[in-house]
């Protein structure tokens, strides 16, 4: 299943599909993500060189199928549990406890940074619903999220580069193949979060991932990602989790094809003066008509609703 309403139970983070997700920590604790990645590269004897024929194929649309990331931060029994102390650094723990208080007392965190159209970013990329696609090539992997059409690139057998002189939403990811397993290292990320009801991450957040397609009885296939997160500002020590994806069979059978979209033109939600999410409705100042006309309404064929050609009037 996909990420579910965070007011029910942590056990609803997709664990109903296939066998329970089990986090497998690395064989030892590493001081840095660099050391962790270097260790795995050495263990793999420098990695497997794939050809276009041999590189693992993860074709089709995928949905998120659960994760254990919240287990690191909140004690059982899930959304009624308490923030686990000592996992986050003091400043991040205080900030997260306030977010968790909103979740528990109001049933909702009042605002989500995605509301004003920030990208999901990483690590949130790993659990945002909408569909994902994974395109593996010998020299590069492309990980696509239908959510605002984000693309994460994994450069195989290469070193990190940062010509922009800043960090970015998906950072810089290098990787190698260890047989059919894709091992990645991600650095240079912008501050983000796991979700709106999970901890914030800093600009020193980094990760090492191991991606593997697993098969289980009854024809179940699950793309599993064992992850270790490092964050010298936010975490007292590295955090381990597993994320999973499953074939988006229902969407594919329905004929779904992702379309390009961006939030800025189609979303009318915003942060109001009370710190809560709110909406602008048709006729209100600032309302954006996603299916209205372009900047050239006098020209024929400029509506963004070409089939129905509707207008929204409220006067």
């Amino acid at each position, binding site marked *: 299943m996909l990420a579910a*309403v965070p007011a029910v139970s942590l056990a609803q983070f997709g664990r109903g599909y296939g066998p329970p997700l089990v986090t497998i920590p690395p064989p030892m604790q590493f001081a840095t993500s660099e050391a962790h990645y270097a260790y795995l590269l050495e263990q793999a004897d420098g990695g497997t060189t794939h050809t276009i024929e041999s590189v693992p194929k993860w074709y089709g649309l995928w949905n998120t199928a659960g994760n254990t990331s919240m287990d690191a931060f909140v004690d059982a029994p899930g959304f009624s549990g308490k923030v686990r102390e000592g996992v986050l650094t003091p400043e991040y723990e205080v900030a997260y406890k306030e977010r968790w208080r909103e979740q528990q007392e109001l049933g909702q965190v009042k605002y989500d940074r*995605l509301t004003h159209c920030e990208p999901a970013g990483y690590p949130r990329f790993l659990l945002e619903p909408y569909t994902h696609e994974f395109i593996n090539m010998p020299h590069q992997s492309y990980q696509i999220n239908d959510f605002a059409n984000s693309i994460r690139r994994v450069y195989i057998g290469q070193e990190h580069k940062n010509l922009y002189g800043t960090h970015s939403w998906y950072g810089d990811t290098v990787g190698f193949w260890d047989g059919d397993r894709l091992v990645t290292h991600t650095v240079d990320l912008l501050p983000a979060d796991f979700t709106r009801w999970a901890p914030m991450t800093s600009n020193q957040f980094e990760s090492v991932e191991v991606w593997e397609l697993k098969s289980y009885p009854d024809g179940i296939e699950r793309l599993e990602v064992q992850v270790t997160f490092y964050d010298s500002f936010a975490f007292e020590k590295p955090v381990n989790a597993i994320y999973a994806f499953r074939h988006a069979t*229902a969407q594919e059978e*329905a004929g779904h094809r992702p379309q390009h*979209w961006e939030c800025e033109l189609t979303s009318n939600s915003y942060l109001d003066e009370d710190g809560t999410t709110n909406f602008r409705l048709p006729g209100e100042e600032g309302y954006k008509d996603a299916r209205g006309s372009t900047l050239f309404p006098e020209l024929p064929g400029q509506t963004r609703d070409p089939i*129905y050609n*509707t207008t929204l009037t409220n006067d």
Partner: protein
Amino acid sequence: MKRVFNLSVTLVTALLTATVVYAHHSFSQFDRDVEMVTTGTVQRWAFNNPHSWLYINVENEDGSETLWSFEGSAPPSLVTRGVVGSTFEPGDTVKVMFCPLRDGRPGGALGWVQLDDGSFVNPSDGGCNGGDANLERWKGWMEKGYTSSTQASATE
């Protein structure tokens, strides 16, 4: 000048939706403890990401009309429930169950929707419960003429 309804809302019961959520925002602006039913004419079905919106004109008691705006889930989720861009067409008459905006403006989160032909669809997201169990309960309520969960709860 259209009239904007000020909705008086009362807590009834905490309803947790089992619907999968495709949300880039919190649902705190919707009162998920209140469910209402209204009937109107489709002005537009914006089957857009990150959320779909159904806009319907609802006739007021004085004969004027108010444009109501209802948020639903995202297309990638809705297609798996048989809801697509042509499910609601301009001019269709629909009955909408929704959880209202807390500030009383004419809008809310979609629950279920009854189409012209009498069938029901569930375009809901995390803001309101449009699931089967909820629909079955509402069928009973509608037979008794209720148009809000507040009304039903106070009577039963």
